[in-house]
């Protein structure tokens, strides 16, 4: 099996098992919609402040509901020693990592794809003015979340307090990526293109993705196998 086949075999397995039961997806989606609802009490939905807070609000929602999905990533493999079977299989650790990260990425992307229109409807905003760039920025930030989440999922898989430790580890480290995503999303949802003043955030996001993806790909074998 070529490397790509291995990666997509793992990703496909995870996606198939999740999409059949839709447990984590449903929980995550309901959670996201509830937070979107709650935020209407934080800020007056008609005010101008909402436009300035749109990026922050959206990415808080994605971060919180994304962790619900990331928690399931490696935890899913614990019953019946599936994790041992995966580790013992002849695929390289980085292929396992990328497969799981891609699956997590896809699931969080589904949440985002549903939340954006819901957000537009609930808060009466048109957000599609810069759609291609918005999709690209969301993809970069979601990949950052998926990478860190999958990596730390592997780190915490055998812990008792896994569900508590994973958010505790992920959120502080994710802050540069979240910050950039929030800044850019606020801009793009308001319909403006990324100007020279804000392109730095795009660079931060891309650099974050590259650095942490390479780091994770190198270190994941150590974590899983030892």
């Amino acid at each position, binding site marked *: 099996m070529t490397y790509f086949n291995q990666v997509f075999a793992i990703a496909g397995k995870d996606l198939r098992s999740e999409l059949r039961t839709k447990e984590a997806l449903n929980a995550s989606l309901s959670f996201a919609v509830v937070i979107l609802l709650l935020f209407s009490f934080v800020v007056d939905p008609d005010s101008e402040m909402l436009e300035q807070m749109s990026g922050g609000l959206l990415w808080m929602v994605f971060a919180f509901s994304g962790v619900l999905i990331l928690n399931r990533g490696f935890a899913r493999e614990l019953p019946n020693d599936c994790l041992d079977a995966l580790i013992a299989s002849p695929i390289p650790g980085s292929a396992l990592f990328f497969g799981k990260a891609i699956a997590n990425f896809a699931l969080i992307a589904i949440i985002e794809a549903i939340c954006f229109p819901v957000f537009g409807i609930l808060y009466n905003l048109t957000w599609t003015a810069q759609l291609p760039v918005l999709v690209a920025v969301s993809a970069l930030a979601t990949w950052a979340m998926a990478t860190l989440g999958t990596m730390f999922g592997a780190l915490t898989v*055998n812990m008792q307090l896994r569900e508590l430790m994973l958010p505790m580890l992920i959120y502080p480290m994710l802050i540069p990526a979240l910050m950039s995503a929030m800044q850019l999303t606020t801009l793009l949802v308001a319909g403006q293109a990324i100007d020279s003043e804000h392109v730095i955030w795009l660079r931060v996001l891309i650099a974050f993705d590259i650095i942490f993806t390479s780091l994770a790909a190198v270190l994941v074998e150590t974590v899983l196998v030892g």
Partner: protein
Amino acid sequence: MRDKLIYGAGIFAALYFVRNLYVILLQLPDEAMQGAVYRIFFFHLPPYFTAVACFLGAAIASGLYLKTKNWKYDVFAVSATEVGLALAAINLVTGMIWGRQQWGIWWTWDARLTSALITWLIYLGYLMLREGIKDPSERAKNSAVLSIFAFFAVYFTYKANEWYRTQHPGPVLTIRTGKNTIDPAMQAMLFHNLGAFLLLAVVLVAVRMNLENSQRAVESLRRRAHAIA
């Protein structure tokens, strides 16, 4: 012999601090606008540099542990991280007190304060991870990986926050600005206190390492004792 060295270093560090305090409180000139409170600076910036040095040491030790699987490196990593966390806490608290006096607020979300808080939280997560894993070798391995990630993240966070608008005073050390923006006596004092803090950090890390080694000895003794008795 090693214990004597640590004692000696500790006493030397204490004396160094006494000398520094004397200079800070009695000999340094006054700052034009801030009055006496600027002298907190000497206990605000050196702990931060020392903490970063500790975290860097921990990250390097973690990498070495992953390569060689020698327990010594794991012991050093956890000790350095803990001491670094204490020093970073000093940095945060003194910064808050200074800021309360200068800007009238206990906290502000500017670049450096935010990245200092994030750093502190990241390494707190490291200690929590260690608490949560019982098996020693898995604990060492996983926390080593986290330590490497953490250092990269800390550097990244610092850089990313720099691009945000900042309320924090800019760089004052001549090595960063290249010209004289700070009284040379104050700058010299800063380096003196940095030296004192580095020495103190070495002593604390050594003590903490002794503690960690004793803890491991206890665990192995416990296994023996309960197997036999």
